[in-house]
């Protein structure tokens, strides 16, 4: 019952299962304040959606979730449009490169491998860092010690670069090169992994670019809208892998789940939330790693060409 045929993934799925996946990931992203792409894409892979379709379709879904997220931040005046624009110019370049890489990987039959490896690497690093950080924070609260005060911004090699620009809202006068490079790297990840890249962008903006925390989330979301939109169009023209039917069901589940998640998140303590998220991230990472290293039941696979 309620089977729906996905025209691009070319499979029949239960609409409630897909909606539920969207809602569950939306709930988590609302609760933790993360994008959710890094959880949704692996879930789609586990459900048998072809890797290239999973990545491109997830980019399309992230456009929707980042629009509603960015709007909230925009109303609060937390978007640095100039910084966001510099980031997204880099992001566009990274996206073009990433979509071409996916195309080549599909031709040589390694797209699944590279997507899985990227996820194992990034989820592994981020999961471990988050877990360590949140466990320390939990210990600190138990012992009643205050969080260590952040050191004031220091001058580093970043300040010696040319092409300096003034970013009023971020209260910065820095070279445009680091944000361009950061944007390009995140754009590349968006195209290959089907993520917004907030989990790289946000820490990099805080610790590397020293952007004030209040404008980081809004600016990151602002540029994610455009980068994932570019990724969606490029995947559509280059690889024909965007499944709008799948994306639409995920979007519906996602926005509803995110609202409940945001409300649930208010009642939970920050460091415990982060520890939970870290465990979840590590769980997904380990599952993907197992799929890579355990001998599969079927060593052969087939890939169709043409006939469209």
């Amino acid at each position, binding site marked *: 019952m309620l089977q729906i045929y996905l025209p691009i993934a070319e499979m029949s799925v239960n609409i409630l299962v897909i909606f539920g996946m969207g809602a569950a990931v939306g709930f988590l992203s609302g609760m933790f304040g993360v994008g959710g792409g890094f959880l949704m894409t692996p879930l789609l892979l586990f459900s048998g959606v072809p890797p290239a379709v999973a990545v491109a379709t997830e980019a399309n879904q992230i456009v929707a979730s980042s629009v509603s997220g960015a709007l909230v931040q925009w109303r609060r005046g937390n978007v640095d449009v100039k910084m966001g624009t510099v980031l997204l110019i880099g992001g566009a370049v990274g996206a073009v490169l990433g979509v071409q890489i996916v195309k080549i990987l599909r031709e040589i039959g*390694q797209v699944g491998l590279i997507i899985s490896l990227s996820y194992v690497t990034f989820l592994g690093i981020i999961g471990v860092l988050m877990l360590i950080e949140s466990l320390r924070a939990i210990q600190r609260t138990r012992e009643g010690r205050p969080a260590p005060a952040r050191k004031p911004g220091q001058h580093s090699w970043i300040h010696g670069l040319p092409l300096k620009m003034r970013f009023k809202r971020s209260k910065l006068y820095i070279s445009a090169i680091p944000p361009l490079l950061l944007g390009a790297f995140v754009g590349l990840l968006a195209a290959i992994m089907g993520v917004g890249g907030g989990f790289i962008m946000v820490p990099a903006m805080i610790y590397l670019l020293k952007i004030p925390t209040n404008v980081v989330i809004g600016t990151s979301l602002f540029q994610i809208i455009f980068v994932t939109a570019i990724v*969606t169009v490029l995947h559509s023209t280059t690889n024909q892998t965007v499944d709008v039917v799948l994306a639409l069901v995920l979007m519906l589940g996602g926005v509803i789940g995110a609202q409940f998640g945001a409300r649930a998140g208010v009642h939970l303590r920050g460091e415990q939330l982060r520890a939970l998220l870290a465990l979840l991230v590590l769980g997904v990472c380990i599952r993907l790693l197992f799929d890579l290293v355990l001998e599969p039941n079927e060593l*052969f696979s087939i890939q169709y060409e043409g006939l469209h």
Partner: protein
Amino acid sequence: MRRQTFALVFAASCALATAPANAAPPGEAINSDISSRDIAIESNFSGARIVIFGNIDRPRDNFFDLGQYNVAVVIRGPEQPVVTRRKDRVFGMWINQDARAFAKVPSFYAVLSSQEVELIARPAVLSAYGIGFDNLSLIPEAVKGEAAPEESARFREALIRLKEAEGLYVSDPKAVTFVGRSLFRATVDLPANVPVGEYATDVYLIRGGEVLSHNRSTLRIHKAGFERLIYTSAYQYPLWYGIAAVIVAVAAGLAASAIFRKS
């Protein structure tokens, strides 16, 4: 009276003149059709079952009673290029390594019969008509890795096994059943991922190892409605499709924040 006799003789001689030289009585022939000649894939499509049915014209009682009539049905979908890859262990991970490219692989292939096809027809007959998985002409055209023929045979086997697992290759030696003396029917399930295109359904009447009669009907599988709109625009107008996908997403995001802002 005389005139009538003349007319009868004339008619009889005409009939004799049109009969074959060695005057054998007309043999058995097969007629068949498919329950639906046109299948539309719409958004609620989760597969379809089709029935191939037909009858044997002029069956002979003695052959029928001995169970000597057999029917084989072969359904073929449009051909497409397929690459088969094999994973090998590299740095502790299972990674696609060797590959074979097959240029013309039937996207769908079903062989339905009243008995194992090997038991009802000579190998040369099966091979000439392409009946059975063993008689599919699947020759690798491009090779990555060891080119030994036994290696290629493994890729061929794997291709058939994977197609079977997807429900796109079917072999059922009990699918054709006789209803009464000359009617027969066979059912086959088309999975949700059945490829679109023109399908050919060949029905063979077999006796004594030989094909006595052969009948072909065609089946068209196509996408329809919303499904067709999405599919054709994605492949024919990918730029507009991509832009539309983004517009839908932006609209969904705006709608969501408008709805939940009020509540």
